[in-house]
């Protein structure tokens, strides 16, 4: 069980601080122990059982975290989602996951499906991510995989009870598994940063000054915003800054390293389907380089392979079990060679001096501000608009641009429509109306030509 990997410090008599919330209230390990037990009693009276699937639809808080940990303790498979998910998307997740219950922002429980769920006993949680078929897909993460990652990262990053870890990423991002579980496993404190605080960088800066966190794990976009708005020169440096989720432009990275000049930086890499599978420790000395840093070498629990077409394949203990209720998609993305299962990452890489460098994608998935987005999911939702015939999205200069044919609509109307259908980070930045979308000789949309319109 994964819970046994992390619960050593969660005991009836441990007055160390386990959690800080977004208002900087602190909670001890004993308080966490009590809260988990109380929730367990509630779940039992409500007949929530081992093997059930439960959607956690709430923002981050101490009680929210206790719900998540209670699921782990009981063997309930949890599905954390953004509590601002539009109803339409939430309904899709409820239907495709066949979840038994959903826990809302006020921690009330709504039952969805009484049919027993035949989940793999190895399953720990399901993380939903943008789907190339047009609907979100759920990555089923295993207990063993999570344990491997937490055991390794605890050692590599030498987490001790003295550490304060920041938890910036929401629970539905794999990044958050490190902050929360490595913190608890090692008796450290974890600072939960909720939705509201995560977008108020000035207040975040003030709180950082007060709390002095020692370990950061965030996307380059977040580091850049903290640097710009957080008055970094007035605060203590963390001992460790881990980044992942997107390429960190070396010039931007170096400008942060010039301020945090005693901090050790790591580049971590891995899609949700495998969690972190490669890592690279940046040299202490800030180098005068213009190229990006490598994603490094495989973690001890991972195996990597580069195909003839330069695609990175990933195998090992952290590999997901499946996409939830999507056997054909799972078969398409996980291939078996020489008795080993490999995940086709879709990332094009280059090997140089035994180090892996990320180059590009081999499909239309994009990363915007660290968020993973399938452009087809946006196109699919927008094509349901009554005035739109055809839609094609492109990604350029960190902007999503949607071209459409049909009746011309105001950009404001289309933004509001997108906001009702899509999660906020997927809303296109701009809309362009065309009488007809350009097609190539195969009759498919000519994306290269669309770029010419800009």
């Amino acid at each position, binding site marked *: 069980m994964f819970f046994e990997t992390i619960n050593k410090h969660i005991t009836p008599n441990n007055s160390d601080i386990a959690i800080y919330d977004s208002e900087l209230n602190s909670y001890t390990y004993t308080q966490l122990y009590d809260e988990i037990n109380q929730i367990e009693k509630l779940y039992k009276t409500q007949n929530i059982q081992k093997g059930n699937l439960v959607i956690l639809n709430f923002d981050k808080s101490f009680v929210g975290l206790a719900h998540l940990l209670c699921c782990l303790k009981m063997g309930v498979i949890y599905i954390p989602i953004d509590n601002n998910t539009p109803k339409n998307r939430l309904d899709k997740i409820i239907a495709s996951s066949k979840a038994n219950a959903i826990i809302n922002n006020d921690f009330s429980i709504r039952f969805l499906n009484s049919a027993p769920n035949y989940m793999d006993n190895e399953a720990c949680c399901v993380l939903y991510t943008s789907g190339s078929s047009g609907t979100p897909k759920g990555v089923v993460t295993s207990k063993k995989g999570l344990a491997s990652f937490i055991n390794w990262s605890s050692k590599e990053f030498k987490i001790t009870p003295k550490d304060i870890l920041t938890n910036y990423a929401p629970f539905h991002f794999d990044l958050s598994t490190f902050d929360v579980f490595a913190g608890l496993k090692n008796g450290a404190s974890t600072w939960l940063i909720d939705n*509201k605080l995560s*977008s*108020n*960088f*000035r*207040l975040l*800066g*003030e709180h950082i000054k007060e709390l002095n966190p020692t370990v950061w794990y965030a996307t380059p976009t977040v580091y850049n*915003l903290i640097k*710009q*708005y957080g008055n970094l020169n007035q605060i203590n440096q963390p001992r460790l800054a881990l980044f992942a989720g997107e390429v960190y432009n070396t010039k931007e990275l170096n400008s942060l390293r010039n301020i945090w000049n005693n901090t050790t930086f790591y580049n971590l890499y891995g899609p949700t389907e495998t969690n972190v599978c490669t890592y690279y420790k940046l040299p202490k000395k800030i180098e005068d380089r213009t190229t990006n840093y490598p994603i490094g070498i495989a973690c001890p629990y991972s195996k990597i392979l580069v195909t003839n077409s330069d695609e990175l394949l990933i195998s090992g203990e952290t590999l997901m079990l499946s996409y939830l209720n999507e056997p054909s998609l799972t078969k398409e993305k996980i291939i078996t060679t020489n008795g080993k299962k490999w995940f086709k990452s879709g990332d094009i890489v280059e090997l140089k001096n035994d180090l892996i460098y990320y180059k590009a994608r081999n499909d239309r998935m994009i990363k915007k*501000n660290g968020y993973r987005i399938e452009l087809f999911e946006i196109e699919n939702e927008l094509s349901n608009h009554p005035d739109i015939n055809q839609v094609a999205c492109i990604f350029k200069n960190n902007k999503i641009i949607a071209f459409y044919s049909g009746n011309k609509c*105001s*950009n*404001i109307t289309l*933004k*509001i429509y*997108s*906001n009702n259908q899509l999660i*906020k*980070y997927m*809303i296109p*930045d*701009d809309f362009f109306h065309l009488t007809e979308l350009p097609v190539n000789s195969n009759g498919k949309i000519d994306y290269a030509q669309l770029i010419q319109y800009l």
Partner: protein
Amino acid sequence: MDNKEQIKQILLDGFIEVENGNELENDTPLISSGILDSISILQLIDTLEKTFEIGFEAHEIDRDKFDSIDLINQLIVDKKQ
């Protein structure tokens, strides 16, 4: 130009692309509607501070209070008093 017209001009100049400025009304929701993303809001606050020569404290930056031209105007009026 009164405050509201000035706020609208800031939005149209740097934050919202529309063919016809009339589409943006004083009560059009800006943030809850998805028209402005979270990074634009940070830039908007910087621009408002410079233009109106005011300063917002960290705890005053609540997204709900910046959700329309009317609401932003109210914040500026309160600040100027």
